[in-house]
């Protein structure tokens, strides 16, 4: 009996002269500052294994990142720990050499267009798929899923062929259009749980108050869906800026986005451009992406994109 009491109310431990085992447990708990019955931090080798794995991953990650950054500032870095001389000149050189003003302009134009178009197309569709039942819904849902499930090359090559046949090849239009193919389904997939968590009777209430379908959308649904739309938009933005395969298939010198430009620089004939030029460009790319993502993470919690359950009960 006493054991039970102590186990459930650890503060009562020292005062109650319980069994030997209970007292031991209570003192151990008091020393480590935890309630008895909780998992012990020291005892689990699996915990150490996980932390070690994560550490290795992070070392690799930081190693990759810093070596590119160091390389982009280094003049002649071969068989030493660090380059002998540091210089910022590679940035100016690569900016000029690859016409980055234009490339970044293209990248932003493409990204923003894709985000706007895919939200405009995807959100209403996501709404209907989440809320309504109609003939052919299953087929349509499956079709919307396919562009995400298929390798980009699989639909990218036929699509690029069509683009070239239509004379759209190597234009910025082609780049925007091909990037829409995975983006619209992606918006639909991201938005569906957000829409489902809004109670349908809120929309009914708006209609009973005399709001037309359009007013329901603009006055009630849009404000409630802003977090979801923001999340979807940011993810599409990141995906589009980082999308290599599809863009590469249809872009030309005038419509290359930053990733494709870097790839071309790395693989251009004659063993590629000077490594530091590429590194400088890669650093600029990463900086752009990082700014987008840091801003994004301030708005959305990435671990709650799929399902949202209050974890307040945990503490």
């Amino acid at each position: 009996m006493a054991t039970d009491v102590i186990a459930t109310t650890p503060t009562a431990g020292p005062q109650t002269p319980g069994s030997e085992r209970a007292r031991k447990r209570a003192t151990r708990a008091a020393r480590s500052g935890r309630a008895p019955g909780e998992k012990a931090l020291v005892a689990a080798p699996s915990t150490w294994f996980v932390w070690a794995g994560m550490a290795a991953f992070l070392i690799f990650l930081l190693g990759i990142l810093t070596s590119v950054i160091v390389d982009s500032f280094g003049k002649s870095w071969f068989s030493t720990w660090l380059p002998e001389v540091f210089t910022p000149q590679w940035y100016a050189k690569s900016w000029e050499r690859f016409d980055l003003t234009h490339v970044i302009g293209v990248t932003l134009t493409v990204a923003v267009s894709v985000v706007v178009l895919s939200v405009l197309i995807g959100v209403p569709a996501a709404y209907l798929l989440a809320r309504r039942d109609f003939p052919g819904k299953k087929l349509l849902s499956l079709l919307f899923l396919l562009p995400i499930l298929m390798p980009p090359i699989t639909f990218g090559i036929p699509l690029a062929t069509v683009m070239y046949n239509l004379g759209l090849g190597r234009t910025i239009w082609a780049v925007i259009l091909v990037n829409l193919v995975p983006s619209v389904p992606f918006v639909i997939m991201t938005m569906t749980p957000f829409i489902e968590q809004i109670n349908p009777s809120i929309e009914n209430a708006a209609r009973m108050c005399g709001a037309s379908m359009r007013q329901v959308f603009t006055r009630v649904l849009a404000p409630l869906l802003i977090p979801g739309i923001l999340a979807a938009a940011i993810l599409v933005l990141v995906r589009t800026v980082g999308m290599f395969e599809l863009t590469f298939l249809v872009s030309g010198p005038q419509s290359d986005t930053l990733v494709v430009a870097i790839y071309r620089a790395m693989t251009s004939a004659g063993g590629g451009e000077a490594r530091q030029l590429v590194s400088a460009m890669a650093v600029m790319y990463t900086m752009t992406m990082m700014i987008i993502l840091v801003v994004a993470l301030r708005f959305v919690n990435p671990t709650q994109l799929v399902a949202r359950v209050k974890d307040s009960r945990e503490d």
Partner: protein
Amino acid sequence: MAITASAFESLELKDVGRSFGGHDALVGLNLTIRAGEFIALLGPSGCGKSTALNCLAGLLPLTHGTISIDGKRVDTLPSEKRGFGMVFQNYALFPHLSVEKNVAFGLQMQGTPKAELKARVAEAVALVKLEQHTKKLPGQLSGGQQQRVAIARAVVLQPRLVLMDEPLSNLDAKLRLDMRTEIRRLHQSLGLTTFYVTHDQEEALSLADRLVVLREGRVQQIGTPAELHNKPSNWHVADFMGYRNLIDLTVEAVSGEDVRVSGAGFSLNGHAAQQVHKGESVRLAIRPEDLTVVEPGDSVRDGNTISATVAVVEYQGREFAVGVQTAEGQTLHVRSAHAPQIGDRVTLTVSASRALVYRSSLDEDSAGSTPELEEVRA
């Protein structure tokens, strides 16, 4: 200006039906609602009462029939053009708008001038006594307050008809009683025509001028609270109206409306609520209040006695709800003025006019009622 109901003579539902891919959720609802009336639609969950409400609101298209107001069809209008107000079960307040803006929403949709809008919103908020909370968001209000906002939002538009979808079911017991009074007060002071959906018979009886009982999408009975309370049209309605004792018996003799039924170890004199014949198996319905324990010195009513053993005793304020069991294993619910002991042998009595005899089958569809029989016995 005061909030009033915009009037009409009558609202007529004619043969209204709705089916979902072959399944009939609502069949042949005929009802005429007069202005100022409080109609309650009563039925267990899944009986089609929400379907009926949504059809009336225009949130669900009809698959049958017409709805018209003073001879003018409204079922072809989208819900936002019908001029009805609605109060939802889960309140359905706009979570991003303050109390004030929630109430103002409908007026904004109508393009009401600013000054008038302000005055009407203030009036509606005052009506539900929420003046202190106008700037709060719905999330900061209690359930009862949220429900008041929902009511204010519906009545501020001076709707021709207010639809209420189980508005009290999410509230706790005490609040529910308060809000019930509040709704009745609003209805009477504003002269609102109200169509109220609920599964709670007590709520329906206390609020409504007329009740509609629905079962599996079909109307079972329409009538005033007193009619339904005293003369349910079949055992299903009786069950819903609080006739907790439903006993399957056989008719021994019929003379006019007086019937003698027997089975389950006893026989009783009852009143035929539906036409029954000798030898027919029937269902006897008695309210627990009408079935009483015979105390020493009490007289037995109409020669009706049942002996049984006390199994469960619940204290219910003024009296005790007692569960007893007959020798044949039939469980009965009765009332007693003082608490009997578990295991006591008691004698029960009921007056013949309060022992209603119904046919076992529910009208045209006798099929598929077996699972319900099981449920009622248990």
